[in-house]
């Protein structure tokens, strides 16, 4: 089988990988241990395989790995700094926005791409940003709330409810 070398940055680290011309970015990333990139449909419909390519969300199942040559790729594994979580990750935890967690990496990456461009989005804009990621667990309300909370400057702790 023909192979080729590609160079790219993944989560800030320079990588040089041997790939076949037909290898999808999704498969190569998972092969290299970036398991946060999920396989949900392989057709660009569910969005679970989202990564940020030069800051923009893309479906890694629709892109040849070779096309990522020279790009900066951000996966969910690159969002936290050591044990310090990204504010979006904290917000997802505080708001119960991750249920099964399978689409959560894609949601968080799409939200990051939005907040990088627009630090104080409206709810409509958040929903637009999450529209490409199907979630079958949450009904989207808590993920949307989490993104809005992460965007807000004074994000407080989780709402704790007084019991009746």
């Amino acid at each position, binding site marked *: 089988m023909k192979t080729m070398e590609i160079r790219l940055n993944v989560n800030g680290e320079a990588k040089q990988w041997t790939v076949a011309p037909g290898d999808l970015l999704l498969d190569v990333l998972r092969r290299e241990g970036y398991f946060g990139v999920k396989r949900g449909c392989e057709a660009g419909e569910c969005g679970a395989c989202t990564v940020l390519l030069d800051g923009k969300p893309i479906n890694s199942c629709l892109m040849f790995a070779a096309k990522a040559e020279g790009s900066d790729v951000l996966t969910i594994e690159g969002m936290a700094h050591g044990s310090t979580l990204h504010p979006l990750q904290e917000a997802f935890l505080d708001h119960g926005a991750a249920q099964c967690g*399978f689409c959560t990496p894609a949601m968080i990456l799409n939200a990051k791409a939005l907040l990088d461009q627009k630090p104080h989005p409206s709810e409509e804009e958040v929903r637009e940003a999450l529209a490409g990621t199907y979630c079958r667990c949450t009904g*989207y309300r808590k993920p949307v709330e989490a993104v809005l909370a992460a965007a807000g400057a004074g994000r407080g702790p989780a709402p704790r409810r007084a019991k009746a």
Partner: protein
Amino acid sequence: MRSDHTVVGQNVRKVDGVKLVTGGPAFTDDIHLPGLLCGKILPSPYAHARIKRIDTAKAKALPGVHAVLTYQNVPRVPHTTAGQAWPEPSPYDTYLLDSKVRFVGDRVAAVAAESRAIAEKALRLIEVEYDVLPAVLEIEQAMAPGAPVIHDEPDAKGIHDASRNIAGYILRGIGNVEEGFRESDRIFEREYRTQRQQHCSIEPHVTISWLDGDGRLVIRTSSQVPFHARRQVAMILQIPVSRVHVIKPRIGGGFGGKQEMLLEDICGALALAARRPVRIEYTREEEFYMARTRHPQILRMKMGANCDGTIVASQLTVLATTGAYGSHSTTVQGNTGSKVLPLYRAEHMRFECHVVYTNTPVAGAFRGYGCPQGFFAQETLVDEIAHELGIDPVEFHRQNVIRLGDIDRLSAQLGEGKEGLPRHIRSCGLPECLDRAAAAIGWTRKRKALPSASHLKRGVGMACTMQGSGIAGIDWASAFLKMNEDGSFFLQVGAADVGGGADTVLAQIAAETLGVSLDKIVITSGDTDTTPFDVGAYASSTTIISGGAVKKAAEKVREQVLRMAAKMLETPVENLACGDNRVSTVGEGKKSATMTQIALHSMYKEKTQIMDGASHFNTDSPPPFCATFAEVEVDTQTGMVRVLHLATAVDPGVAINPAQAEGQVEGAVAQGLGYALTEELVLDDAGRPVNANFLDYKIFGAKDMPKLTTILVETDEPLGPYGAKSISEVPINGPAPAIANAIFHAIGVRFRKLPIRPEDVLRALREKETVADDQCV
């Protein structure tokens, strides 16, 4: 309800949350195994056919192919794929591989190869000659005289009447409906139809299997039922249960679709044949038609009511299809009667159901488990009755719904595939659910609002629903706890967290009972080697049943901790209490020992491991209750129905983790919205799926959702741990009838078939205009 809990009732973060939000290797497929092979299944292209000849020589000869299985080289063991407690009430009508195929997508052969490309090429090299048989695709044709017989194999067991394609038959009742109808002032009878909905968990079914160093078969799988899967795989592959190890990692959504032993058997068989690790993952297309769906039903609902609004008698007659195999056939359909009719206090009830085989994708467990179908019929008919009698639907419900202290006698007639147990209503927040959801939607004002003059018509509608909390007398679970030197506890449960947060809730129950903070509980779940038995995640059972086991185990361990502390502190056990990660004397002269001190003392002074386990089951299944209110806007030019607001009030007993409970409600209603308006797996006239992808099969996305209001109406259930019942299923039942009723309020047209598509709305509006032209009201 007690208000002094420190962990129960708190919105703590998910115990597995960090791993999920950081994309850690948590799911079945998130491992690399050396020598891993790709398994693929050859699906039948025909809805009904016999395999005349199958030749795998070319596939086997292909370099990189390590195993090729057909019916000729695997054991033939009739079984059900339904992940149910033994003995399963579903018919044993399924084989690992068979010489007959019964739906498009049925297994013909399976291969394991060094890459996906080689596996797919190997499938193409398998030569199959079929004797194509006439197929039964429509429910109504299945029992017709002369219809092709789908299960003509002699060794199937438990089929009600194979010669007429009847997988199961149910007839149960209380009172005398005929008498009830005679006593009623008015009789209402309508027919309803529901569709084939697919679970669409974002993680498809995926299983990885290998032989460990001792030659035991390891199955790492996306399952809601690891223990049932272990038992079934052992039976099908004819190996002892002790030689099978099932591991359930994090699961990317189940919703009932993974209450099936679906890939575990074939993946295990391939691993045994190849002596190499094998992974099988369904593609999204395969997931749509080779996994499971909700059972489509034709429901005939008849109710007798008096003019004062009292329901006297109700009768539901159902014709359902289970597809080609009878997975969950009688149990899902039994629920359509037993969990639906008793919502009302009618003296007379009758439920009859035929569950028929058709040459279509296999139906199975799906969140709601027969209730979404039944409640769509019942709650739409009840709305019609209230309208006809001139009674506000909310008032009509208040007058008729089951209440605290009632006994649901139909449940005693209709259990899990056999007679069941009566349900005593020991907690019921339904009246408050009605009040609060009605207020949230603005019911009183909006019901009276004048119709809009524009082409956009608004309306509000509602429905009430209930469910169960575990299967009475059948579901059971166990838990084990042991204490570590640092005062922490390992909690081992067979329960299968499928994403809903069971691990968190169970850890909260353990922490509360032991008087420690949540971080002192380390939970392991759903591993058949390292955790004790649990039936698995289904029937809204985990919080109440597995939670009950955890509470019992924790109480026993707490007793041991207190006894150890009594020795250390030289004070009677009765003077001691756990709390705040320590044991302290109650009242004057306060003495205390930390959990760490107690653990060290126990382990190194007393040479005693503090540990204990417990099992738990209930003989009743307390229903959670739900009121769903919808506001819709119907575009009379396009037929498009837009849901503007969905308010759901649920009585889950005590919510152990309110935020997680709300998440269950919101996820359920999102699936209910799809059931109402967009979701249907469509088959062509040869039984082939035509929309097996997310472009043509529409589930709700972030922008499609209406405004959601979620209200938890907490009650204290005596049978539940800390008063908890359940929540995951009940909210899925309400959206379809509430939306159908809201559409009626908006445009005066009844819809009795799901999903309610724009073309259906437009057609109905045109027919209404035609009728109106001819009618003088």
